[in-house]
């Protein structure tokens, strides 16, 4: 073969679907989008009085997008982390600590909103760095390390709420984070805009930059990635820092919107967000995933309680069904991937 090109047989190429439609329908996102639309359709069928009332359905949709945007902001970091082969169960607590520390710095220490945001992000980065170092350098599994951090941070949140837990509504940064705006006559929470901007920016980073390529490679096969000179530990540490900072940012956005926050806020967010990421097509074992899928997964996770509430289901049933859906999604993911 030295003077010829190898042909068929063992070197035959398996080609991906080529048309745009076939490419879309072959992707996980298509199924998730259909699932989301089906849930939306349930509202139309079971509660036509609400679905066909512009005021009511726009209220439902506003709440849906506002809730989903919080999941999306944290889900961006969680996607990076899961794609690189780790996960973080402390994001719900980081969310609460972020929001409450933001309030404490502004109320008790009289710092400006901007300075408080910077300090909270630095605190979150330190938490993420701690998680990352414990997991990658000490070798503690991320499940154990971040459950420990979950408890530590929740304790911090409880301690903070003994002081102050509200933010001044007249601060410009608070307005920027938690305000509302009108777009084409539709009221949109600023946090939705933040979520969209962050998805675009981090989507480009994940799909188009060297760092993004390395995130996928490390999650796919860490040994292989390291053999090409990629510092896998550093990739993971950066992702732990990223998810902690985004969780803190989401906490600051949340307290800015509501004006106050409880120490218990954000409990179970870690599971909801991991579910959104996995439902959106990210491989729980790393190496595969997309932010677009995660956004759709977040919308599914956010619409489930809306559908249940509108149909008069109790909170207990909501919790139960949400749990069943999460387990089913992860089990199906594992079955379909053959892992």
């Amino acid at each position: 073969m030295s003077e010829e090109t190898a042909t068929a047989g063992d070197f035959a190429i398996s080609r991906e679907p080529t048309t745009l439609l076939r490419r879309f329908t072959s992707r996980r996102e298509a199924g998730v989008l259909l699932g989301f639309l089906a849930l939306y359709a349930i509202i139309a069928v079971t509660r036509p009085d609400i679905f066909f009332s512009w005021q009511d359905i726009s209220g439902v949709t506003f709440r849906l997008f506002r809730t989903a945007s919080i999941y999306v902001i944290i889900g961006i970091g969680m996607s990076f982390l899961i794609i690189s082969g780790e996960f973080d169960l402390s994001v719900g607590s980081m969310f609460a600590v972020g929001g409450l520390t933001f309030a404490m710095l502004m109320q008790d220490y009289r710092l400006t909103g901007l300075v408080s945001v910077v300090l909270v992000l630095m605190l979150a980065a330190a938490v993420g760095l701690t998680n990352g170092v414990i997991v990658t350098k000490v070798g503690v599994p991320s499940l154990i390390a971040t459950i420990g951090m979950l408890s530590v941070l929740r304790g911090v949140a409880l301690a903070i709420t003994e002081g102050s837990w509200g933010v001044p509504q007249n601060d410009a940064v608070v307005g920027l984070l938690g305000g509302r705006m009108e777009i084409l006559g539709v009221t949109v929470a600023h946090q939705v805009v933040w979520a969209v901007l962050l998805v675009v920016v981090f989507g480009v980073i994940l799909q188009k930059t060297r760092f993004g390529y390395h995130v996928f490679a490390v999650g796919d096969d860490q040994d292989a990635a390291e053999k090409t000179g990629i510092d896998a530990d550093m990739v993971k540490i950066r992702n732990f820092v990223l998810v902690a900072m985004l969780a803190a940012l989401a906490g600051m956005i949340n307290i800015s919107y509501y004006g106050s926050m409880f120490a218990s806020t954000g409990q179970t967010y870690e599971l909801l967000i991991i579910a959104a990421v996995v439902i959106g097509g990210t491989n729980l074992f790393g190496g595969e995933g997309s932010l677009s899928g995660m956004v759709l997964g977040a919308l599914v996770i956010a619409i489930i309680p809306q559908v249940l509430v509108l149909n008069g289901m109790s909170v207990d049933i909501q919790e139960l069904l949400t749990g069943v859906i999460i387990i089913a999604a992860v089990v199906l993911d594992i079955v379909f991937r053959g892992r």
Partner: protein
Amino acid sequence: MSSKPIIRTDGLSKRFETVHAVKDVDFSAAEGEIMAVVGDNGAGKSTLIEMLCGVLKPTDGDVFLRGERVEFDDYNDAQEAGIGTVYQDLALAESQSVAANIFLGNEPTKAGLAGRLGLVDEREMATEASAILEQVKIPVDPHAAVRSLSGGQQQAVAIARALQFDPEILIMDEPTSALSIEGVRNVLNVVNDLRERGITIVLISHNIEEVLGIADRITVLHQGELMGVLDADDADREDIVLLMMGGSEDDQVEEITEAGAEEGSTA
């Protein structure tokens, strides 16, 4: 083929606590030859080549590249010095594209600010990947996911990745062990082609027939020790098996002589 050694070792040893994996091995490969390294499981083949490509540091002994003593801290050091490696497990990220795997860890970036922000020049990466794959005459779509490729094609991608750095020496660890018959034939054709381009190949294998068919010389290891270096043209399967089992070439001569004497006495 020149007989000048491009790479050699002097008394190379590696201990792992109580295990002496490689013992005082003097290895060499000449410019442009295919030097096979054979041995049974635990013979020290992989440990030897991992010391040559910077994965492991020797406990004792030295490595010389073009006559100069070298020490490698990691794979990248060896790569920069002109030693490429194709690992037995291929070290590929299977869910990623062929092009991404070929340039993994070394992705080309766009010019200007975009490049400084780390944006990968995907068009250039695909074009360059095609060019490298064309060098080894293997038709693989640079956009295809590696997991969609056959074993032979995946091996080709791993070879192409090593070739992007224009290595003078290519170390290949069991490149055909997991391939179909056709895959083996195609990969061995690629190896031959690389030799014709002047690249020195160090081929680790346990397949004696394959080694006899392609190698110029054969280094045989047994339990970490160098048992002998054979010219492939003069060696046969029995010579190699005997050395792999710990016997020497002299033992074989003695056995043949004894067998001849017995035949003579019974005649």
